[in-house]
């Protein structure tokens, strides 16, 4: 048995050399053990990266598609702008490949070779079309491949932005088979020509780099292989130390030992940094091909491939955006190397040298709709975590119309600036109580939210007033009172109301639950007996309160809920003049129900969510519910049209908005909130103006919100067909004398065309202005614009 004592005796007998050898063996064994352990550790790190998730893919948000059909208003200029945003490239001749277009203004056509696009319901292959445009209207569409006429054309959605994590990276994965072999060869030629022959590191390249650097007196060439570069990008920083280089080399050898060359190459092609788009990095060859040339990798020319390969060394120095000259010089170096290596023929080489680098127009996707995107995030948060949204590469298709969004942003910003210029008291000293506003735009037919601006400056405040600001609606609530009157009649069922029903506008006290409520008119002006129409157009408070008193608050509240108000509405008399807080989105939803003939829709922002494999995770459909009859909606719209023509929104006409439209101003009693909600049959916008801290605005809805609404609508509807609200069956349009409430005669000095439910209109002729011959029906008897009884109130 060996004892410690025996070992001690033996050691004493050993010569020094033997002792030294023993220590050496122990050290080597220990070193080997530690080295093996370290290599195993590094192998684990490399494997975890290769076999696990390598990258985070931000989810991408897309706008709505753009449908073109014969007859739609469309100018060549607008179309060109749209095509530029969608990364189409102008071509001299007829477009030959996807993404090209040609404009012929002389002959009035645009030819487009549509992009391929993965729509939520499947991929669509691009094809060439000719769009004939005359008088700013799409006339005909032809498929240039088949020469057949097509009746609608869908332009793909625009990329709005992404949901990013802390690192803003743009990347789309490709497999090796999706990358043209020549691009791979170009990269190998310039970065690692012996890639398929070395084992992760290339001693020859290192020696060559060492020699070059020595002779040049500094570091001008690197000897890193693609595998080393990949390891550095995956795991390490760019610090130039021996320790880091050794680690990188060891990891490269391990990766090369464990994985195939093609696996390493594919990872490299997806990982490599190739430029900067604003705040976002461009990573991988797919994203770079899109960014610089708006092409898929397989569509690149030899020269373009060489340019991309040349970027790897210093993407921002060799980018064509700052200098086409520098990019061309670098590209030519790569081409020369490719030719030397025999990857391209002389003819290819010379042709590629002649290619002029034309990068696509630099389109910043710097989130033109930050409030809208925040809203989408809130909507999606119910089903998707932040981790999923920032890493899983979902594609989110929205209802957003970027064209309308930009108009809305501009209208709000300019409108608020103008208000501050015109009314200096609105400029507060502190930044924390600045005049602000919101605008939301809805397509009434579908409920699609086409644009949303939740505030004046997103950088300063991300508070989205469209959905988060609960404010008193004031008079913008009144249409619900009048609609309740039309729908229910009086609470005791003794009275039916029409727009011509009379109501008294005078001081009034509403007694309820032992309390009293005394509404007052704006500037305390009262007009005596007025019709419902006049009371609504002039936004008369006491007349409205009297109507509500007869109809019943419960019925008013019921109508508000039916139309789409979701906030809790207490049964207080002041409710009828808009004293209960709601959001602009609620008002827009309720008004959209009127615009949509009494059919309520759900606000729709997220349309579809698709995962990276193209599976539909979620589809949100258009949802409808008929809540009032089309006849009731039409009468209401007819009355609200009068607000533009005779009432508080006449300012819109003075500012040049002349389309048929219905709407209502809103001002709270203490003028802290100014509203305007208005719509054509096809487009609705609601504007709110005020202070977050509820400081006094001192302006009415027609002074503060209406100008913003008008500027938005003028531009948003420019060039689109003028449409009016069409009366449904069951509506009688009768020319009446508003003074008597009877059918107008040719002697009546004032005439309006009023809408009634079939059989509810007057049948007798005006007794105040009798005439031997009276006409009834569609032809107006007198000029409507001559009608004006009461001066505008608020």
């Amino acid at each position, binding site marked *: 048995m060996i004892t410690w004592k025996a070992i001690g005796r033996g050691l004493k007998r050993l010569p020094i050399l033997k002792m030294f050898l023993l220590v050496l063996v122990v050290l080597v064994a220990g070193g080997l053990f530690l080295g093996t352990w370290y290599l195993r550790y590094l192998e684990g790190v490399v494997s975890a990266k290769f076999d696990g998730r390598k990258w985070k893919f931000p989810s991408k948000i897309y706008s709505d598609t753009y*449908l073109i*059909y*014969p*007859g*739609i208003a469309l100018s060549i200029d607008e179309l060109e702008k749209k095509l530029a945003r969608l990364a189409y490239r102008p071509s001299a001749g007829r477009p030959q490949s996807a993404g090209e277009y040609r404009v012929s203004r002389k002959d009035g056509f645009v030819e487009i070779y549509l992009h391929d696009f993965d729509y*939520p*319901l*499947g991929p669509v292959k691009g094809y060439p079309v000719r769009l004939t445009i005359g008088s700013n209207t799409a006339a005909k569409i032809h498929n240039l491949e088949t020469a057949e006429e097509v*009746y*609608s054309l869908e332009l793909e959605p625009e990329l709005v932005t992404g949901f990013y994590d802390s690192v803003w990276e743009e990347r789309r994965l490709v497999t090796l088979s999706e990358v043209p072999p020549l691009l791979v060869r170009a990269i190998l030629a310039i970065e690692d020509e012996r890639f398929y022959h070395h084992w992760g590191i290339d001693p020859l390249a290192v020696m060559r780099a060492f020699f070059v650097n020595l002779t040049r007196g500094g570091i001008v060439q690197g000897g890193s292989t693609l595998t080393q570069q990949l390891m550095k990008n995956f795991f390490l920083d760019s610090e130039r130390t021996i320790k880091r280089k050794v680690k990188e080399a060891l990891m490269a050898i391990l990766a090369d030992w464990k994985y195939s060359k093609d696996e390493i190459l594919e990872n490299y092609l997806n990982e490599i940094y190739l430029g900067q788009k604003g705040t976002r990095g461009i990573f991988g060859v797919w994203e770079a091909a899109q960014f610089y040339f708006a092409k898929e990798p397989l569509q690149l020319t030899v020269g373009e491939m060489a340019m991309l390969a040349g970027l790897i060394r210093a993407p921002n120095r060799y980018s064509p955006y700052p200098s086409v000259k520098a990019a061309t010089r670098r590209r030519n170096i790569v081409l020369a190397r490719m030719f030397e290596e025999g990857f391209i023929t002389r003819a290819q080489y010379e042709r590629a040298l002649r290619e002029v680098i034309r990068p696509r127009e630099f389109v910043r996707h710097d989130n033109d709709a930050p409030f809208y995107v925040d809203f989408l995030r809130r909507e999606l948060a119910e089903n998707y975590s932040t981790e999923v949204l920032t890493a899983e590469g979902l594609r989110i298709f929205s209802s957003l119309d970027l064209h309308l969004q930009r108009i809305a942003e501009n209208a709000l910003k300019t409108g608020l600036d103008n208000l501050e210029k015109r009314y200096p008291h609105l400029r507060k000293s502190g930044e924390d109580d600045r005049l602000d506003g919101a605008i939301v735009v809805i*397509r*009434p*037919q*579908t409920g*699609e939210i086409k644009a949303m601006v939740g505030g004046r400056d997103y950088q300063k405040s991300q508070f989205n007033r469209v959905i988060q600001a609960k404010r008193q609606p004031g008079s913008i609530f009144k249409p619900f009172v009048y609609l309740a009157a039309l729908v229910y009649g009086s609470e005791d069922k003794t009275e039916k109301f029409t727009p011509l029903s009379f109501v008294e506008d005078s001081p009034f006290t509403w007694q309820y639950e032992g309390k009293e409520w005394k509404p007052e008119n704006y500037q305390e002006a009262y007009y005596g007996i007025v019709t419902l129409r006049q009371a609504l157009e002039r936004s008369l408070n006491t007349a409205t309160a009297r109507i509500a008193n007869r109809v019943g608050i419960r019925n008013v509240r019921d109508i508000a809920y039916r139309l789409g108000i979701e906030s809790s509405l207490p049964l207080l008399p002041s409710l009828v003049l808009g004293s209960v807080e709601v959001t602009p989105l609620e008002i827009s939803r309720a008004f959209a129900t009127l615009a*949509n*003939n*009494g*059919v309520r829709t759900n606000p729709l922002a997220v349309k579809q969510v698709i995962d990276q494999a193209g599976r*539909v995770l979620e*589809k949100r*459909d*258009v*949802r*409808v*519910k*008929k809540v009032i*009859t*089309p006849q009731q909606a039409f009468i209401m719209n007819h009355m609200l049209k009068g607000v533009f023509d005779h009432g508080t929104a006449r300012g819109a006409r003075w500012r040049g908005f002349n389309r048929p439209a219905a709407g209502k101003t809103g001002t709270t009693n203490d003028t802290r909130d100014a509203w305007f909600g208005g719509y054509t*049959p096809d487009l609705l916008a609601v504007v709110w103006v005020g202070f977050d801290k509820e400081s006094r605005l001192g302006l009415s809805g027609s002074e503060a919100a209406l100008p913003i609404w008008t500027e938005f609508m003028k531009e948003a509807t420019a060039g689109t*067909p003028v*449409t009016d609200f*069409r009366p*449904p*069956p*069951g509506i009688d349009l009768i020319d009446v004398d508003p003074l008597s409430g009877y059918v107008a005669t040719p002697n009546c000095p004032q005439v309006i065309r009023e809408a009634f439910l079939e059989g509810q209109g007057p049948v007798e002729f005006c007794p105040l202005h009798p005439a031997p011959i009276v006409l009834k029906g569609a032809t107006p008897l007198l000029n409507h614009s001559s009608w004006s009884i009461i001066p505008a109130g608020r």
Partner: protein
Amino acid sequence: MGQKARLLVLAFLWLVQGCATTSRSPLSMPDGGRRASLNVSGEQLPEENSLVSKITVDTPPQRAASLRLTEEGRRLLDSGDHAKALARLEQSLAVDSSNPYVYFYLAMAHLRLAQYRQSIEFLDVAESLLSSLAYWLGEIHSLKGENYQALGLLDRANTSYATALRFDPNNRRAALGLSRVQRELRGPAAH
């Protein structure tokens, strides 16, 4: 006469009328009262001509585009591609919301996707827009009947089918639905 007996008589009348010329309903029939046709799946289509045939030189461009998209949606429904049909029909609705046919086919799409309540909502809208066309009212109530039946609301289905036949005694889907529902209402013993 009880409700069930009345409905049986209605169904019988429909069968008799199937072999004879029907008298015109007081409400107008589209396209001169052309007979309905069957589609590939054996279901009754409202008209033998496509909706595109409704487009004339006077048709506003929005309506024309919407009708074409609706027709495309209808064909997709026939081919069983309900999701695509729904997307196309929603596009059609956005182009022209006053196109009454799109509501009917949206209702059909939702029915095929088993979204019965939403289908009924679309039918309510279609009904108000097509209220002067007996033929379409027959179709609408017949489809309502299918939705109610799928929801297990047999009495309401019964009423809807009967209403459909009142508007259009030639509505085969309603007649078949009615007899099916009445069999179910009578219970398993009657099968």
